[in-house]
């Protein structure tokens, strides 16, 4: 009984982690950017969905769409207002650009977080779920919302796989991640590819944020922990490797759920962080890292 419970709860949370981390790792894989405003964009999506549905009263579906739309806008804002100016700058030496992007996105994230706290308070917000009620699965009373979350996450990840591997745009993205210079020699504009990648990222982060808001709820305090969890999942899986991140998301999700059930909910995140340290020692490139 308890085993089934862990299996079901762990799956939903892992799928959500996977979706959140996929966009994060994709951006790094293709453009070498570690976007530390990731958590802020997810929270902004959830808060926008909440505000649209609960304050403006536009309904659950429209609220969710608005949430994803806000994340898309924020992703573009992050790219055009923060990342691109740093990458294009001639005054910042090339070898320092990475650290500038890290600092820039971190500060950008803090700005978004403070704005959310200022306008919407730092209280937790929960987005009204699209499906309500519970069903019994293998004797475990499971909220339908939890099943919905898991299904949407898996579907979106599958769509992403199709997009990357089966479409022309996707192949260009893949090529850019392998050899950016080669792609430009083929006559493709690198900036266009980056815009596509940031758009995909925005949509993924938006969906993950809105689902998180429905499943567990978010507050402006969640910004740091969300960025940190995406970061550790991606590092564990191997920076830039999408499949590595997927595996790592499930490892972390199940490890947390097991700890919460079998040890104590208070120590939930500790074993996953210890595992991260351990992996860094024996395999610094992560589980499926390339280098």
């Amino acid at each position, binding site marked *: 009984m308890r085993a089934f419970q862990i299996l079901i709860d762990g799956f939903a949370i892992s799928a959500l982690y996977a979706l959140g981390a996929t966009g994060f790792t994709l951006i790094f894989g293709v453009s070498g950017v570690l976007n530390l405003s990731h958590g802020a964009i997810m929270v902004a999506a959830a808060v926008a969905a909440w505000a649209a549905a609960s304050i403006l009263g536009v309904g659950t579906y429209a609220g969710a769409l608005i949430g994803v739309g806000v994340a898309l806008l924020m992703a573009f804002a992050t790219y055009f207002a923060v990342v691109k100016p740093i990458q294009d700058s001639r005054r910042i030496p090339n070898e320092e650009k990475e650290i500038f992007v890290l600092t820039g996105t971190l500060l950008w994230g803090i700005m978004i977080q403070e704005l959310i*706290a200022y306008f919407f308070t*730092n209280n937790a917000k929960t987005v009204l779920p699209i499906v309500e009620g519970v069903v019994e699965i293998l004797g475990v009373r499971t909220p339908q919302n939890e099943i919905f979350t898991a299904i949407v996450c898996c579907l979106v990840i599958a769509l992403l796989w199709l997009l990357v591997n089966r479409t022309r745009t996707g192949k260009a993205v893949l090529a850019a991640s392998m050899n950016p210079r080669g792609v430009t020699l083929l006559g493709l504009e690198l900036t266009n590819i980056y815009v596509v990648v940031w758009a995909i990222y925005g949509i993924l982060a938006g969906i993950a944020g809105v689902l998180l808001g429905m499943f*567990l709820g978010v507050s402006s305090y969640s910004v740091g922990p969300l960025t940190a969890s995406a970061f550790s999942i991606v590092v564990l899986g191997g920076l830039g490797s999408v499949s590595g991140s997927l595996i790592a998301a499930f490892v972390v999700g199940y490890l947390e759920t097991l700890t919460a059930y079998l040890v104590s*909910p208070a120590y939930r995140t500790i074993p996953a962080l210890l595992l991260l340290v351990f992996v860094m020692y024996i395999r610094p490139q992560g589980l499926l890292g390339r280098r």
Partner: protein
Amino acid sequence: MNKALSLRSAFGAAATGALLAASSPAFAADPIKIGVIAEAQAIAGASIPQAAQLAADEINAAGGVDSRKIEIIGYDNHSSSADSVRAFQRAVNEDKVNVVIASYISEVVLALEPWASRLKTPFVTPGAASNEISKSVHADYEKNKYTFHGYLTSAALALSVCDGAKDLLVDKMHMKTAVIMSEDAAWTKPLDVGYEECLPKIGLKVLDHIRFSPDTTDFTPIFNKIEGAKPDVIITGISHVGVQPTVQWKNQQVPIPMFGISSQATNETFGKDTNQAAEGVLYQGVSGPGVAVTPKSVPFAENFKKKFGNYPSYAGYTAYDEVYYIADAVKRAGSTDADKLVDALEKTDWEGTIGRVQFYGKDDPFTHSIKYGKGLITGLMLQWQDGKQSAVWPKDVAKVELKFPSFIKLSN
């Protein structure tokens, strides 16, 4: 410097007096300055500065204190102890406040207590609960006498919950077992000790005790663990968290009622914040909408709602009362001198919105904490019903019977 300052303030006061003479009461002397340091962005804390301002406006409209105006100076502490300490220093050293009202978080209040002693400034908290606040006053009275605990201690809160549970859960609904679920924070340590002691006495066997980190976002394992123990009721001790456990309790349809301290549930905005998942939640309060604890309670709650759009959290009631009894103490002391004010505050006997406020004396272990008991402050139990907060205990203020959402399976 002093001369310049007094000249300037005299000029300021004269100018203010001239300006106000036409429409409102004329204030001759310096204002009485009250610094209000609070969690303006949190559900429970947001009501503190609002209620304090409301009280000051009322007192000023009635002529102030000995024709001195009450001035509220607000500071948002972002729920941080460090920010609160900086605000306290600024309030005393730069803004020259006479008294400070601060915070509903015990960690913050415990960080401010030594500063009240160092800067010799009377300080009252409207919402923190840790026993340590007033125990420190008892342990070193001469040093810490500037701190007043204007809300019930955790020990008294546990008693209040147990008193309510005995009538509502044990006698009426024949419940026999409970699981305690509390966040890991300074205020819940003595609360849990109190719960463990008083629950068995009223006939509720404690089957398990779950303490969780206030950072917890996923409450599924916690509720599943509680359900596994098959208790009749979950006794809560939550304040930093509130929205997430309540929403998840509803979404997961946990069939066990929640009863106890749930600070966020005391604010009317909680209904919207949880998309009405609060339905059926039972929480302890010192007052509530439509509950005539004293003749002052209902008018205050209504005026507050008229001005700010929602009914106040528990800390709104206490903050409102505090401004009034501070004004009363200034009047009795005839001065804003810190030591004289402390003496006057100790003699407080004020009927406020939460009951009759008196402080325990020097010899009591909870020196400077408000007295708990019949005829003073007893607290009440309220329940979220049909999107509203309704009193269900004690009998003399109860408006409605207990009512639970359909997913709650009462074992008796």
